[in-house]
């Protein structure tokens, strides 16, 4: 009888222990995910596929013509989905232009450059962003924008 009570108490105790342990691991995973995405903010802006390059020298801006022709979902699936799901896009903020997604047809009269998106179910999201300079090679102008990462949880 004593052994039975001892085993039951032990099982309940272990149940609680595992629950807290799993909670702690999940919390750690979410923190890691957020940290990785914060690092990603700087690494995306330095991707050669979208970063500006003038006279062979890289510049700290995003070439919007490259954003139009490069589709990262085909080649960067692993890079973006390494720790968690996210949605990545660029928005032109100033000077304000017609709202709308940029495609070869609407460019440059648009302000939303879709970059990467996963079709994942999520209950909440954390939005992080960084200001960027958007370069328009057609008239060699620069506009103010931001890179946004929505971390889906």
């Amino acid at each position: 009888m004593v052994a039975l009570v001892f085993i039951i108490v032990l099982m309940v105790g272990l149940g609680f222990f595992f629950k807290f342990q799993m909670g702690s691991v999940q919390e750690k995973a979410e923190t890691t995910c957020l940290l990785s995405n914060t690092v990603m903010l700087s690494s995306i802006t330095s991707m050669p596929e979208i970063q500006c390059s003038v006279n062979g020298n890289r510049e700290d801006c995003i070439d919007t013509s490259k954003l139009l022709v490069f589709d990262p979902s085909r080649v960067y699936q692993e890079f973006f989905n390494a720790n968690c799901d996210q949605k990545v896009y660029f928005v032109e903020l100033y000077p304000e232009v017609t709202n709308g997604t940029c495609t070869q047809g609407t460019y440059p009269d648009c302000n939303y450059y879709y970059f990467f998106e996963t079709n994942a179910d999520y209950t909440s999201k954390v939005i992080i962003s960084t200001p960027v300079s958007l370069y328009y090679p057609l008239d060699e102008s620069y506009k103010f924008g931001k890179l946004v990462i929505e971390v889906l949880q």
Partner: protein
Amino acid sequence: MQSKKAQMSSSFNYIFAIIIGGIIFMFFVGFAYKFMGFGESIGAAGLVTSMNDEFAAFSASDSAEKTLSFNKETSFRVYEAKVISEGQSKQIDHIVYAPFLIEGRDIFISTKALELPYRVGNVFYVDDGSTLYILVYDSVSDEVVGDLVSSYNSIPTNLPTYSVDVKDINTNVQDLVGASNGYDNVRFIFFTKYDTVLSTIQSNFGAYEILYVTSSENDYSSGYVVFPDGSQVAYLTYPLLIGAMVSGDAYMYSYNYDLVMEKVSRVSNVYLEKSKLLATRLPNCEYTLIKSALGSYMSILGNDGYSSYVTNIENIEEENKKLGGDCPEVY
């Protein structure tokens, strides 16, 4: 009769208690082992994730170095674009050159931007400081090795290097032996023939390897590296030469070389598409030649050797330079 029965019952209780106690004890021992394994897996997963983040943060620089210090001995491998530690492995979207095994409390990482001719990304080097890289030159390769040891193109300073004239090996071998004290391995990188000094090396060094670099270019900016097993691999630009220097073997180098080619193809395709977009939107500008140069370059990716790459890269550079003013350059 009663006393005998009570005696048996008491013995049975002891046996029962020992069995139950043993089961509970084994359960706890098993649990402790599983928990230790779980803790190690979490630690290893943390290590590979933090390594991946370090590479990602580093990719913004043209050239950077960093030492990662751990509070205990750490060992991991970087193999086929995966960081592998304690049975945990994680795919990384970075080109990382490393020896077979990296172990120690201090791990040295460094990066160089790769331009072929435009920037296609960064390559990374991981090392634990246990190997001394000895660069051997002659009168022809003297300047190249000088550049590799101390210039913008140089080998990262956190990789232990030493340079020596091939003429001095036979006469001053003790200096070389002294320089290699404290290192587990020595890797000689010959930018000249080594037949005349091979016996001196064999008799003075225990753990050593020889890599042989050949090139028809005066500045050795592209060429071939021959690994100790006789495998010959091509390299384009100094960052890839440094990659071959650090790589465990020819296979590890070649795997990353293929990744470099994939990156070149991806970035070249972006520039090709961009040049098509510019040609459509700016009909007064001439983009035909650069489109053709980019197309030709993409068609030779994956070819053996390096001379066709050098020719195509020069062609793209030339066509891009012709643009400018009202007709923006492609890169």
